[in-house]
């Protein structure tokens, strides 16, 4: 029996050739969406992905928009209570003069005004860091599609996180947006 055990060991020592990268790529293509229904986490030292430099304008703009609303609604009342002189005719005009600043993300508000009212800088933001977190994957079972083969419906819940940073003022803003994706895997029953 020992000689058969030795033979087994010798056979096990022989390793079949790995699939070629071209073949693996072919399988990946054939899998399509079904290749992405399950993931495992792997450690990585690579930097987070960066999407677009334009994102840096969004959080300051949101903050400044809130400030502006506050100023427009609250400050006139305050000053109005102190000012007892008759209101000039020009101020009651329904047509407001709007100065357009093409660099500003907010219509009718210049970058300078944004910076002044919000107390946050509009320049010097680092590129935003974006990452996608897979929160959950729900297999919703088989679905019947008239005229097509049955499919398996899988719903993914993601959280898209965007981090903005202003190094000079050490300001950080994190924005999170929930997102869902639904894919239907074609099933070839076998």
């Amino acid at each position, binding site marked *: 029996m020992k000689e058969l055990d030795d*033979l*087994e060991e010798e*056979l096990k020592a022989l390793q079949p*050739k790995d699939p070629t990268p071209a*073949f693996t790529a*072919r399988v990946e293509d054939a899998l399509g969406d079904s290749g992405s229904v399950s993931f*495992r986490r792997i*450690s990585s030292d690579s930097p987070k992905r960066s999407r677009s430099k334009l994102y840096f304008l969004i959080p300051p703009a949101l903050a400044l928009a809130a400030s502006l609303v506050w100023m427009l609604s609250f400050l006139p009342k305050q000053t109005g209570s102190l000012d007892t002189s008759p209101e000039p005719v020009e101020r009651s005009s329904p047509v407001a003069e709007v100065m357009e600043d093409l660099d500003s993300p907010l219509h009718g508000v210049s970058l300078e005004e944004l910076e002044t009212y919000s107390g946050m800088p509009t320049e010097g933001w680092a590129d935003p860091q974006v990452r996608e977190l*897979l929160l959950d994957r729900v297999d919703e079972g088989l679905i019947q599609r008239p005229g097509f083969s049955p499919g398996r419906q899988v719903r993914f819940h993601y959280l898209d996180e965007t981090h903005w940073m202003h190094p000079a003022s050490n300001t950080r803003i994190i924005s999170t947006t929930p997102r869902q994706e639904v894919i239907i895997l074609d*099933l070839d029953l076998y």
Partner: protein
Amino acid sequence: METEPIWKSWFARHGAKLLLFARQQARNPHDAEDLVQEAFVRIWRLYGHTGEVAPGLVYRAVRRLAIDWARSLDRRKIREQKVVAEFPLFESFKSSIEQNERQKAILAAVDRLPPEQKEVLTLKIWGELTFDEIGRTLDLSLNTVASRYRYALQKLRDWIPVQLEDQPKTREESVE
């Protein structure tokens, strides 16, 4: 932390073994790759959402597809054309210069085995399946699987020279 599709690590673990098994079913590397791709994609679409797939399911699908394809007239024609060029088992394995001749001798002996013994041996040795899993993959009883495996090993012991040459040989023929 980043993520990677599970199928990739699964395929890295089992892809080579599946191809080896498929090559025995298809008798040429091109058909073997088609078989593995088709079988793997079908099974992964059905069970990939679970995050893990039992290799036996894919081996079983490979075998059933091979049977289906062999029955197909078109496939048979293609096979008849391709079978002219033989693909020895040795070409499906990694080789090193030192072990080349020894490996060739062993794999040539494996190649000589009857197909039904060779597929059991392949699933057991390189597929790392249990006898029970092999039985379910090949639709055979446990006893049949075990006996085919034993006969295969005994034949190899007799056919492969060198280290086993000084041992007494008890050659048994397959009774299946």
